[in-house]
């Protein structure tokens, strides 16, 4: 059958109208869950992060962890008998989408927000949230600027995090190299297009200079690089004791075999971006003997961690990674603060006093989560011990805390 141009036009109009109706019907729908009885009062929280797109795996992992905590809490009767109701918005790792999402969550009258997940979109939201005095906790945005505006010297008091900041990790790895591995010389290779990589590299180099670890070379590569042979050959020629590679696991999976081929014999060091690297490696042997820092290890045998892993496996059918663990802890910190406010004050949910009270309670956090014991410094960054992971026999093994 061939359509005449007129019938095509009619069909086109019909489709457009149908689409408009479909959209109108969708409008107002929210992604909700948790609270079953809508008439009873609920605690409403929002989740913001990338759930689709290139970095969706971070967002989804955090969400799994946070939702596990919320579900547990609801099953145990909620907070003071109130169920937790949650809403989420996919920011697609885009700052302007994140800002829209933040506003959307506020339209849902949320009390607090767990998010964002990546630093860029989170930093687009924070100044607005600071103006609104909105309690927020991020599970994974490691950029120092998320909680502190260095240019104006302003701390975003409403913003907390459950993860390490970039400079902390760089410093810790330098200390680990010098004090534990007793390295004399170090080389660094970093990604000029990734903020995280730059932050860690700078902190590592600064700390290394202070503690007598000589940095023999700093090599760099671009954001879409897949071949690092020339940089690695330079490094191999200088024969450093350790090579620090602050980047995400997908890059490490490409770089580690190339390092072996280029003749690099240094001990490879990494940071929490390496989490999950063993799943991405085609040949795990090229990372043998490497160390990286993480917020969490599934081999940590404390009962709390093992209990979390069991319940996570039951719920989702796979092992939690660091992001899920930090998502779980972020939810724990937030709801502990909300519970404290519910118990000690009679402020109305959503009011400014309520928000301030939640923020104050979060600042006073003193809890042990699955990623360690957490208290906050004056920049709202957690003070906690790092987990060191050693790659031994082709597996990421828990080395200890450092």
């Amino acid at each position, binding site marked *: 059958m061939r359509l005449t141009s007129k019938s*095509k036009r009619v*069909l*086109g109009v019909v*489709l*457009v109208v149908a*689409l408009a109706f*479909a*959209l109108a019907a*969708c*409008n*107002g*729908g*929210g*992604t909700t869950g948790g609270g079953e009885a809508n008439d009873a009062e609920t605690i409403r929280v929002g989740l913001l992060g990338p*759930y*689709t797109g290139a970095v969706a795996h971070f967002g989804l992992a955090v969400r799994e962890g946070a939702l596990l905590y919320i579900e547990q809490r609801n099953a145990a009767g909620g907070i003071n008998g109130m169920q937790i109701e949650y809403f989420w*918005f*996919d920011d*697609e*790792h*885009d*700052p*302007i*989408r994140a*800002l*829209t*999402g933040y*506003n*959307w969550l*506020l*339209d849902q009258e949320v009390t607090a927000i767990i998010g964002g997940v990546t630093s*860029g979109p989170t*930093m*687009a939201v924070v*100044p*607005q949230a600071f103006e609104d005095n909105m309690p927020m906790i991020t599970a994974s945005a490691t*950029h120092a*600027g998320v909680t502190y*505006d260095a*240019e*104006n010297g302003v701390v975003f008091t409403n913003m907390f995090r459950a993860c390490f900041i970039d400079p902390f990790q760089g410093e810790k790895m330098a200390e680990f190299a010098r004090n534990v591995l007793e390295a004399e010389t170090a080389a660094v290779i970093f990604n*000029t*297009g*990734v*903020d995280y990589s*730059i*932050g860690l590299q700078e902190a590592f180099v600064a700390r290394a200079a202070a503690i007598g670890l000589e940095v023999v070379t700093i090599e760099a590569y*671009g*954001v879409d690089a897949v071949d690092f042979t020339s940089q690695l050959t330079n490094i191999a020629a200088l024969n450093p004791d350790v090579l620090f590679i602050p980047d995400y696991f997908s890059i490490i999976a490409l770089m580690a075999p190339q390092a072996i081929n280029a003749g690099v014999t240094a001990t490879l060091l990494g940071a929490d971006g390496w989490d999950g690297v063993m799943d991405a490696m085609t040949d795990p042997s090229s990372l043998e003997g490497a160390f990286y820092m993480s917020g969490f290890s599934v081999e940590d045998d404390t009962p709390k961690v093992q209990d979390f892993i069991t319940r996570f496996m039951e719920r989702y059918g796979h092992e939690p990674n660091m992001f899920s663990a930090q998502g779980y802890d972020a939810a724990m910190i937030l709801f502990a603060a909300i519970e404290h406010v519910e118990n000690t004050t009679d402020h109305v949910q959503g009011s400014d006093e309520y928000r301030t009270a939640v923020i104050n309670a979060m600042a006073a956090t003193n809890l042990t989560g699955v990623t360690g014991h957490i208290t906050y410094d004056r920049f709202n960054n957690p003070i906690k011990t790092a987990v060191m992971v050693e790659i031994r026999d082709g597996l990421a093994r828990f080395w200890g805390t450092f």
Partner: protein
Amino acid sequence: MKEFRIPMPARYGINLALIAMFLITGNGVMTSGMLSRAQGAIVIEVGIFIILAVSLNVVAGYLGQLPLGHAGFMAVGAYSAAIFWRSDVLSGVPSIIGGLLVAGLMAAIFGIIIGIPALRLKGDYLAIITLGFGEIIRVVIINLPQITGGTPGLLNIPRHTNFLLLYVCVIITCAVIHMMMKSRHGRAILSLRENEIAAESCGVKTTYYKVMAFSLSAFFAGVAGAFYAGTLGMLTPGPFNFMKSINILVMVVLGGMGSMMGSVIAASILTALPLLMQGLNDYRLIIYALMLIIVMIFKPSGLMGTYDFSLSRILEKAGNWMMTRGDKKGGVA
């Protein structure tokens, strides 16, 4: 039978009245709190993408080329405005307007620089070279940390974007482009799309008009970039990637290449869609793709084709229809 025509001054009057009504009502709605916060944010985002789509339409629709570097011009504008606003050269309203102009001019200069070599090429080749340009801009921004803040980006940009300012600029953009396309220069640009060899043989300066269309398009993309910076209050190079250019191109193609109204409608729908479909979770990605496929199958020329809205024309048609009816009645009697 004499056709019913609305005289030119009256046409201007009608359009001006409509614009004033739109701005006053819009501003009233925005400030009255009738809209939710997310809806307010989307209205701003829609405005920015209308400017982007309408400006890209000049090159993609009217000039008939396929540029893939619009996000690059947007980035130039965004960073220029952000640096200007942060520097406190001027203050108050002059600073805001100045930032918008600086953004547009910087982008236009880049448009000329890129346009002169790029527009010697056609079709696929032009697409690739503009794509390359868009990426170069982003890489340059990453590697000039002293000026642009590099990968961590620029923070604490004054948030100057508001409804009235943005939509006044949306209207100026549409008006300037509309008027230009109706002028001698616009006709020359259209002739290049229809048949470049024929146009050249008639004495149309092809390179001149191509670069002109390209830099006009870049100018408004830069202005849109300035509004983007003024909305977010922070800039990182990440979002100005190749996908952003593609998204803007999708708006133009979906709306109908060469239809300003189509660009406006498609930009509005596609920008508001993720929020409207929030209730559908991840299915929205499938729906988005399906919608594009359906439109392209059944209406390959885009939602509006090359049709452009004109209230005066509709009024004239209505007038003509009434006159013919009057004639018929007269005939019967």
